[in-house]
């Protein structure tokens, strides 16, 4: 694969989209399928069924994709240079993890223009856990000159199920990485399209208004009554779909992914309620537990499908 030259607007150090395209090309060259973002609100790339569900069962799987991530609580009305309620993650999942995954990861950094003889790359302990997905793994935060640019995780358990084999998951925080590569202080200052002058489009042009509007919505106006109701409805529907999709006679399941969508909906409703500050600490635990139960049930059903490796 040949990197575009540094005058190219699509060079990873010149544009946000150039960074995305470079990572996609890099991982495509390593045999990954390049998926597109999942069309639902999720808090992290891990929630994409291309990771959560596909990391379960014995079948090999390699995929990479961008996932818009919504973290209602992290909204700062667009005023904080580093915190957004909506941002992009670049997600790579390799099952089983290849023995040289660290080397591959470092090569991907080199591909986006990070010179390992100039920059201090570090693997700092991070025990990753996603309580709503019932998932955990061991790995690191990857630091470049003191900045966390990626999460590197060897999945041990997903949806409460032991991973066999283990997947390696890489999550690149695209905005932060791009700030670094473009040498700008604020995410809003990122050059999105790599053009200059009148043709230049910044991250601000694309997302500032959205950050302001959604911060208002997340913190002040989201209808909590409706959200509580939606949480319950999604929970009920998830369970209903898991029940009606179960083909017990053949030990198969026929409707895991629609059920999983409802699990994601419940999770997002919970995140919004949490941002609105209407969930107390004790209740919080019980909501997390309820979503986790849904995720676990979906994971167990997944193992009864073709892609989940059912015989």
């Amino acid at each position, binding site marked *: 694969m040949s990197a575009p030259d540094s005058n190219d607007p699509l060079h990873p150090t010149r544009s946000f989209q150039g960074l995305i395209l470079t990572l996609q090309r890099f991982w495509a060259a390593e045999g990954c399928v390049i998926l597109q973002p999942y069309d639902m609100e999720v808090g992290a790339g891990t929630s994409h069924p291309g990771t959560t569900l596909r990391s379960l069962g*014995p079948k090999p799987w390699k995929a990479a994709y961008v996932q818009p991530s919504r973290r209602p609580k992290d909204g*700062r009305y667009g005023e*904080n*240079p*580093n*915190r957004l309620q909506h941002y992009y993650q670049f997600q790579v999942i390799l099952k*089983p*993890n*290849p*023995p040289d995954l*660290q080397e591959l990861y470092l090569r991907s950094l080199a591909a986006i223009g990070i010179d*390992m*003889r*100039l*920059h*201090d*790359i*570090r*693997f*700092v*302990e991070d*025990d990753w856990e996603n309580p709503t997905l019932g998932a955990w*793994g*061991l*790995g*690191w935060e990857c630091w*470049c*000159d*003191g*900045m966390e640019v990626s999460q590197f995780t*060897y999945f*041990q358990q997903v949806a409460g199920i032991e*991973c*066999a*084999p*283990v997947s*390696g998951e890489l999550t690149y925080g695209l905005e932060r990485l791009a*700030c*670094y590569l473009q040498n700008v*202080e604020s995410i809003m200052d990122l050059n999105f399209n790599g053009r200059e002058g009148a043709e230049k489009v910044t991250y601000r042009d694309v997302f500032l208004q959205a950050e302001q509007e959604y911060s208002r919505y997340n*913190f*002040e106006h989201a209808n909590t009554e409706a959200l509580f109701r939606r949480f319950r409805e999604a929970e009920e529907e998830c369970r209903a779909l898991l029940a009606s999709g179960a083909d017990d006679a053949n030990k198969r399941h026929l409707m895991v992914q629609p059920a999983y969508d409802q699990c994601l909906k419940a999770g997002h409703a919970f995140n919004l309620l949490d941002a609105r*500050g209407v969930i*107390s*600490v*004790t209740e919080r635990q019980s909501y997390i537990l309820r979503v986790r139960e849904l995720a676990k049930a979906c994971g167990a059903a997944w193992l009864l499908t073709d892609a989940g490796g059912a015989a």
Partner: protein
Amino acid sequence: MPDLLLELRSEEIPARMQRKAAEDLKKLVTDALVEQGLAYEGARAYVTPRRLTLQVVGLPARQPDVEEERKGPRVGAPDAAIQGFLKSAGLNSIEEADIVADPKKGEFYVARIRREGRKTPAVLADIVPAVVRGFPWPKSMRWGAASAEPGSLRWVRPLQSILCTFGPETETPDVVPFEIDGIVASDETRGHRFLSQGPILVRSFEKYVEALEKSHVVLDLDERKRRIEADANTIAFAQGYEIVPDEGLLEEVGGLVEWPVVLIGSFDAAYLQVPPEVIRATIRANQKCFVLTKRSTGKLANKFILISNIEARDGGAAIVAGNERVVRARLSDARFFWETDQKPLPEFAGSSLKPLDQRLERLKALNIVFHEKLGTQAARIERIVSLARRIAPLAGADADIAARAATLAKADLVTEMVGEFPELQGLMGRYYALAQGEDASVAAAIEEHYKPQGPSDSVPSSAVSVALALADKLDTLAGFWAIDEKPTGSKDPFALRRAALGVIRLILENGLRVRLGELIGAALDALPVSSDKTAVSADLLSFIADRLTVYLRDKGARHDLIAAVFALDGQDDLTAAVRRVEALGTFLETDDGANLLAGYRRAVNILRIEEKKDGRTFSGGVDASLVLARGEEQEKVLVEALRVANESVREAIAREDFEAAMRALAALRPAVDAFFDAVTVNADDADLRANRLRTLDALRLATLTVADFGVIGG
């Protein structure tokens, strides 16, 4: 004698696990060697982020041979038995066995089997894989294709290679032949991840260390720490700064790099308006960098020391720039928290409540649970407020001010800053309280009410802080006692021992006069749980007395004297009790004290014997008229002396003059001595005898007003 060199090279090991892992490796391998009869001269383990290394020197080349005796059948046993014996003992014919004569059993066969010791590498090839497979990592993982099957190798992070050689220092060593889950032991390793390329062939430990150094790996954690400290001090000093020492951070950073390179960076001085503790917490927790103070002023500087893992081509300029960018972003976050926390909350827009009071309201509204059986944090705050109000006058504080401090004490728990840096609880409360114009003593109490955090932490001394700190701890203690969550053995999840010691130190070091029993009673009354208050209070008091005993003993007080005072009822005024212990110690060091103690013991001995003989006690007091009518002179003197002493002691105790009480007791001494010299206690006249025994009992009772002399040792 040959040496063993073992290196387990893996992906990055968490810094906090490294030191323990090196110790574990050494212990597990050397224990196994000794168990296999392989004594060694010395062993040392080393650790970097990417390798665990063990060197064992002076091992024998092979295990010693062992001789084993196996008893066989008696001589002349059936052939089948003989054949079975030959087979099991590995003998070719019965001629190879010895014949032993036993006086009871007669003659029987014995096979002497000489088992040759195995060569050490063969033993190591068993030991090392077993150690690796059973290694006690606090958390371990599976990885790769092998993890599809159950039982695959677990390690802290994927294990990449194993170097394991054995041989004399002067010769090329042999590779110990083994393989674990596809990883074959070799005599190769690798250097620094970025500053070295290709495999390194290892010949001896010295060469190994040398080669690693050349490949930019400092094998020894302590050496890395030493270099970091030295370089950091040099750089800071040269620019007029001093490092704020931080051993925990140094240990961690030493575990994050194989080749430490110290660099200095700076941030915008405008951030220094944020409290220094916040800047330090931010830079330390997120960036693992050291903060500096200006040598001239001692104040925090807008500089930080970072430790990178590479020698960069540009001398580290890009690395410093990158770290500065992150520090800037983090400080910008911290400043955002700092400013946000001092502004109204959205749900209180237009409210007249001050910022910290709004946080308190939010805390209440959130119904944050303190403990499922002890209710919400809000309810707990209310209890602490009323306790602090009650304690305030006893500590010399204004009740309203103490109540205000108690009201705000936990409000910072819902601030953004404490959410981000929990270790700043209390401190942020102080800052925010000052910012909204609270009384300085209120602000100080908010910070100090968590203190003292342990035996070496400082104890608050300002009246409001003392009242609040006591209220906080007493509510905690009473609460967990009431729900029977007391510390057991090494388990003390709610740090109740520390809380009890805190209560003790707050009272003693401030000379506070409080009846703990009453305060505990009040704390129990306020709880949302019902309990047998008398029993719970007594149990908690005795727990506190135990902690006090430990505390005083550590300070050199005599254990038996503490016990002698605490044997009396109602010793819940710790300050008075401790003064009494001191007075008792001084008294017993005088001749009068020592003799009175001897007299006391003599009296009690006689009493015990006679009471046993008669099967009754001699309580009830002396019949004075009988003494006057028929008693001897010395008896009269003692009875009168006891009357006088009792009166003086009672008076002295009432005004808490324990020295005077002891002096009054001491005045008894000549009368007691004279009584024992001249008076026969066991008189023939039964009435006189009983009355004299009652006199001894009165003497015992007189001493009991100051302490239980019966538990004094020596």
